[in-house]
Structure formats: structure tokens, C-alpha cells
């Protein structure tokens, strides 16, 4: 076990420093690049916070859909292949729900302000 602070706490500290202390000092194209950098650190923080839970749920669903075991990468590759072959499609019970749940978990990390995501978040699945 590694020591603390945790990676989440460390990236968050860097992001806050850049946001609060450096942003006011920078202008023009470098200010744009700085915003991108802060967005990246915020994304990493969200992923570190949420990934373990969402990935465990994703693996659980994938095992149910595919009837096999494996890493999240292996299971996604298997699902992609079966959809490509036409063995699974939207008529397969649970597939649409799985893809929705997985995609919503991705957006929560990647782009939580994306309008389509906000809309779907407000909907009862």
C-alpha cells in the first residue's frame, strides 16, 4: 500500500493551484492551454474517484451478458466482436441497458456538462 495523500488528493491540489493562483497571471493562447490542462486534471480526478465502482458494475453486467469471465478490456473486446458478428443486438435482453449504463459512467468522467448527458441524467432509466 502506498502512502498518502492519495492520487486524488494530489491531482486535485495541483488543479486548484493552477486554477486559483496561476490563471490570473496568464493571458492569450497560454491561458487557453492552461484551461485545457486544468480540465485534464479535473478529468483525472473524476476518473480516480469513480472508476473502481463503475468498472466493477460494468464487469458484472458484461459477465451476465456474455457468460464468460475476464478483465474489463477483454470483456469489452468480446462484446464488440459479438455485436459485429450480429450475435448480440438491441433485441438482446440487457444489452441496451448495459450500453446506456456504461456510456453514462463514461460521460460522468469525460464530459459531465455535455448537454445530451445532462438531459439523460434527468430521465428515469
Amino acid at each position, binding site marked *: 500500500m502506498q502512502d498518502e495523500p492519495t492520487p486524488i488528493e494530489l491531482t486535485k491540489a495541483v488543479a486548484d493551484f493552477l486554477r486559483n493562483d496561476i490563471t490570473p497571471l496568464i493571458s492569450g493562447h497560454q491561458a487557453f492551454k492552461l484551461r485545457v490542462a486544468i480540465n485534464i486534471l479535473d478529468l483525472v480526478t473524476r476518473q480516480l474517484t469513480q472508476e473502481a465502482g463503475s468498472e466493477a458494475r460494468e464487469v458484472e453486467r458484461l459477465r451476465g451478458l456474455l457468460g464468460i469471465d475476464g478483465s474489463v478490456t477483454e470483456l469489452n473486446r468480446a462484446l464488440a466482436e459479438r455485436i*459485429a458478428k450480429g450475435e448480440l443486438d*438491441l433485441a438482446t435482453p440487457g444489452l*441496451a441497458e448495459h*450500453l446506456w449504463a456504461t*456510456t453514462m459512467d463514461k*460521460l460522468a468522467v*469525460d464530459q459531465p456538462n455535455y448537454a445530451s448527458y445532462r438531459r439523460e441524467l434527468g430521465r428515469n432509466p
Partner: protein
Amino acid sequence: MIEAALSRSVRRWCEGATGATSAAKLSGGASQETWRFDITHPDGVIGAILRRSPKGYGAAPTRAAGLAAEAQLMQLAYEAGVPSPRVLHVLVPEDDLGTGFIMQRIEGETIARKILRDEEYAAARPILARQIGGILAGLHRLPQDKLPALRSRGATQEIAEFERDYRSLNWPKPVFELALRWLRDHDPGPAAETTLVHGDFRNGNLIIGADGVRAVLDWELAHLGDPMEDLGWVCVNSWRFGEIDKPVGGFGTREELFAGYEAAGRKVDPERVKFWEVMGTLRWGIMCGGMMQRFREGPDHSMERAMIGRRASETEIDLLRLLAPRGS
């Protein structure tokens, strides 16, 4: 440095011009650059834009039509009354500026979010969806015997091409697989009529003023194909910039777009438009993957490139909203 070459160039072909000033690079990759500059003239300054490939970068990427074709298309569009900058000069070797062309500069806004939010465009916004329909109808009617040599692409070839691009990324995405299946199952086949297709007609590639669309830009993906492709692409959610209930670039409805197109005397096939919207959504998703790959493999190791890889999931949710919508 570029001003000296521009000055020598404009004096040759622009009668009365005394030189070129205020040159500034607007955008530029390794192979293509856009510059703005002013032509000084006793009757007043002429605003101009240079699009060029610097010397040594003559070859166009496979999907691009090339700058010479772009210049020819813009000039044809201008002559046919499609809002477009007038092409002032096609570069020749004596210009010593590489290959490309110089066009009239049109004032207005191209940044989508400003067009969708700023007060200045409030009066234009409600008319844009219909106006875009009319412009696309005019564009699809450009005389084919005058077009430059362009690649020809129908739905079936495009599906195969995007599938190949996607597979080359080795980036298994179940939602993209689902979209590819849907596209193959709904392939509308050859279009009833093949026309010029702009290929990247969307909010962000239009110069807009308080009075509406002033110019259509970025013709580099022009090709021959199904005219409904342009109507589908302009509706892709990624180009609505948050205004998700206004499919046409965040401006208005499909009905307005279709009405504008049909009022100009051309027929809409809504099923084909939907097909191309799904295709366009997937296309942008795969392009995000391509940018991630370029970031990883080195040529452009910028943070912006890296972050675009993380925008593929936006197209996944949009594909699900199109193909597997959830009840309200």
C-alpha cells in the same frame, strides 16, 4: 517576410494595388495555413485571406480535395449565388508562396458558441435553419460539368471506409459496433441523384453576420455523392454546441431545413438524412479516436489532441440517443 512576397504578388494581379500589410496567421497545421492580410489600394484597403500549402507540402491528404479544387469550388459557388468569398487569385510559381489561393475576406463570426449565444446574432438565429436549406439546395445544384476532379463516395463505400478507420484504431467500442451494424442494415444504397457534396457543412464552417449566412467555408472535403449527406451532417449533435433541441446547428428544426431546401426546388429524403446523421455522429467519434492515436504516436503531442480522444464518448451517447432512445 510573407508580406514581401504578398506585396510582390498583389501588385502583379490586382490593378492599382500598392502592396500588402497586416499579415497574420489565423490557423495552420504542418501542411496547410490560413493567413489574413490587407491589400493596400488607392481606392481603399481590400481585406484578403490566403489559403496555402507552404513549399514542399504540395500533396493533399487522401480525403481532401486539394486547394486548387477548393478555389475552383468557391468561385463556382460565388458565381451561382451560394454565399462564398470571391477568389481573387490562384497562386502561381512566381508568387513564391507555395500552392493555394487568395480570396476576399468576409467579415462575420465563425465561432459556433458566439453565434448561438451573442445578442448580435439574435435576429439571425431563427432564420438560419431555413436559410441553410436554401444554400444547400444551391450548392447541390452547382453544374457538374464545371466541377474539378473530385472523389466519388456513396453510402456503402463510406460505411466500409469508416469501418476500416475504426478497426485500424484497435479501440473496441461496443456502441460503435452497434452503429456500424445499424448503418449496414440501413444502407440506402446509391442515391437517386449524385451531386456535389460539401462534406463539412456545419456550424463552425459558416461565416455568419447579423443578417444570416455570409459565406460557406472549408470545402476541402468536397466530393461527389448523396446530397442528403450534407443535410445529415449539419444535424449531427456535436455541431449543436449544447442547443440539443435544435438539430440544425443549434439554430432550428429539421422541418425548417427541409422546407428551405424544398422551397429552392430540391427534394428531401428524410430517411437518408437520418442515415447520414448517424453516419456523421460515428464519423466524428472515429475522428476523435484518430486524434488520440496521433497524440499517442507522437506527431502532435498536445494536450488538446489528447483531450479530443476523451470526446468520443459524446458521440457514443448521441448514437445511443439516435439508435436506442430511452423513454421519458
